[in-house]
């Protein structure tokens, strides 16, 4: 097969490409340039491109750079900023996968005559007769199926995830064995276009006006405090929210930037068994309402027992959990298999 390997300059995609070369595929490496601004690492800096290129040299394959920075601005950074402005908690990595890696990049690969794309995600594509299933990676601690949960058959049919059968430790050992320069490179953390030093407040502060907000007690509607920037408050947040009159910790229960108001209350009010979501994308078939599923509501969480309500836009959890911030993704699982996902509203 002709495979275009998406190479971020990290260890996982380096080993993914190496394994495909071993399997006899015709592999070309490509690094997406997504972000022109400062970055801790992510997938965009010149040094990451250099690492990816150097690994390709070692593997004896061609390397190309695709500049998708305009698409990234339009589909990831812009909506991220806009979401924060309207009080949502977006997941830009998922939007990048949706719009860039498995849309723009995949299109480009097919256009250039490749049969498939490969990435270094820790997840597995299991090929069944007439269908492909997306399954958690073998290393449970590093599983990334959640951030791929928006993929459908059209993408899965053309996707290879060579490191999904390996643990992270095995991936690093494999990279070291091959002498790849990325073997000991630290895992990328958090949002690639926001630096740890400046952080989210500075990033958003340069792009939108940040407004102070009032903290309002859910019990009696009394104003109990203020925050400097309501756009930076996330549902479930505890820091800077204060305590109730009884001294118990308070949490942000809901955020309303238009009213300049954050409703706060104790933990039990944060707990809910209901997650309302927008439209679903299904990996293969829509889930019938009432079916027992697992619902994962964050990248590093686990799947919670749940059922889909009859209207299809509510996930009913068996045990209450902390409220899911609007903008976060809810992925449904059957065991280790991803069924589909939707964004919480």
């Amino acid at each position, binding site marked *: 097969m002709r495979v275009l390997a998406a190479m971020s300059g990290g260890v996982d995609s380096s080993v993914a490409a190496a394994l495909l070369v071993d399997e006899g595929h015709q592999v070309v490496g490509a690094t997406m340039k997504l972000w022109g601004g400062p970055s801790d690492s992510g997938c965009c800096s010149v040094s990451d*491109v250099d690492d990816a290129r150097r690994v390709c040299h070692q593997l004896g394959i061609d390397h190309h750079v*695709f500049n998708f920075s305009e698409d990234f601005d339009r589909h990831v950074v812009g909506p991220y900023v806009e979401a924060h402005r309207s009080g949502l908690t977006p997941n830009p990595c998922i939007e990048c996968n949706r719009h860039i890696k498995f849309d723009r990049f995949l299109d480009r690969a097919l256009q250039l005559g490749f049969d498939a794309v490969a990435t270094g995600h820790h997840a597995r594509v299991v090929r069944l007769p007439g269908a492909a299933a997306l399954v958690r990676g073998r290393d449970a601690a590093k599983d990334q199926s959640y951030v791929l949960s928006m993929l459908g058959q059209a993408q899965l049919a053309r996707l290879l995830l060579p490191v999904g059968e390996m643990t992270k430790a095995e991936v690093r050992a494999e990279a070291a064995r091959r002498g790849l320069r990325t073997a000991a490179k630290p895992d990328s953390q958090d949002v690639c276009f926001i630096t740890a030093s400046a952080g989210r407040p500075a990033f958003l502060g340069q792009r939108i006006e940040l407004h102070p907000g009032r903290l309002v007690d859910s019990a009696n509607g009394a104003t109990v405090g203020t925050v400097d920037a309501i756009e930076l408050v996330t549902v479930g947040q505890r820091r800077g929210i204060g305590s109730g009159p009884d001294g118990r910790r308070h949490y942000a229960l809901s955020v309303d930037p238009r009213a300049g108001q954050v409703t706060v209350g104790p933990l039990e009010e944060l707990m809910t068994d209901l997650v309302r979501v927008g439209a*679903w994308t299904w990996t293969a078939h829509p889930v019938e309402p009432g079916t027992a599923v697992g619902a994962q509501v964050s990248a590093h969480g686990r799947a919670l027992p749940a059922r889909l309500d009859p209207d299809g836009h509510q996930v009913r959890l068996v045990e209450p959990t902390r409220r899911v911030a609007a903008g976060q993704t809810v992925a449904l699982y059957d065991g280790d298999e991803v069924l589909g996902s939707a964004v919480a509203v």
Partner: protein
Amino acid sequence: MVAYLDHAATTPIRPEARRAMLALMSEPGFGNPSGAHSVARAARRAVEDAREVVAAALGAEPSQVVFTGGGTESDNLAVAGRSPRGHILCSAVEHDAVLESVRAAGGTTVGVNPEGQVDLDDLKRALGAEPAPAAAPPTPAAPPGSARGSAPTPASLVSVMTANNETGVVQPLDRVIGITRRKAPAALVHTDAVQAVNWLDPAAATAGADLVSISAHKFGGPQGVGALVVRNAADLDVTVHGGGQEAGRRSGTHNVAGIAGLAAALAVVQEDREALVKRVGDLRDRLADGLLASVPGAVETGRREDKVAGICHLCIPGVESEALVFLLDQAGVCASAGSACASGATQVSHVLRAMGVPEELARGALRLSLGWTTTEEDVDAALEAVPAAVARLRSSAAAVPAVRAPSPARSAR
């Protein structure tokens, strides 16, 4: 076989240059020209021989030739050397080596017309209020953009390239010089002649300019060596400090072999230019005319008669440069989108943007650049590969959205 059509990026080294370099990279040519012994003197001799070659070719005195680490460094020395003395202006289609230096110095860009030549009226406007009152308070760095009104402080430098690296369009440098002398007599004129030396007599093409940048690897010499010609005893602040080489204008031990290679290549080009321009110009015309005929919708950038002989620049609607260059590479044709950043990513060209080329066309920019090694076969290869690649990209561009179309159950997008 690879058809190398990226001479504007770098040229194959002329055998004469290679021989000159090898001689100096062997015993006893390795000396440091600044030393006081026989080995040093041999190296110094090579540098001074080279200086005379450059001076003669550029219509300058040997003492006016400053060897540098390449075109970018030459441009930086010129801009940074003048920026403490006043405002800097440059055209909006300059190479990043000038553009970013001018930006760093808080300078101003002057627009170009749709043919890619500097807008002389815009230049006059930008220099219009010269000379500004000497007591004017320091103004904050002006953002680059079209010149509006007058330059905030007296201009110290106007930088307009001799020929553009993407489009090949030759600039009306003599008129730029005339306007600058009239409107801003204290300002110097710098020209980045990096892309011109191969195709135009550099002495004539840059006549009257105070500062001229050249780069060896654009005319058959090695990479990493160039020169800044400082004519008319132009006054430049020193920005590279050290041992005082190159009359204090550019410290650092000389790249002796590189300098000798530069001079050897320049000597060959000076001899060969007339024949080269004729031969390559004919090849370029056959290539450009052939592609304009065979690629539906393709548009040539700028007027052919304004361009140096080696550059064919087209904009092709309905394709993306990056994908096109990829497919051409697979077909054995080395081409370029015209502009790339350090990571190797293709960018939408600031040159095409400044010319007002519509985004849809600018995204499909293709530069094929020819030179001394280019053959009829290279042109044939491109004439075959480009239409095929464009057809393929256009057909798959239509087919691909099917992959993206949401299935009935996948309504969220």
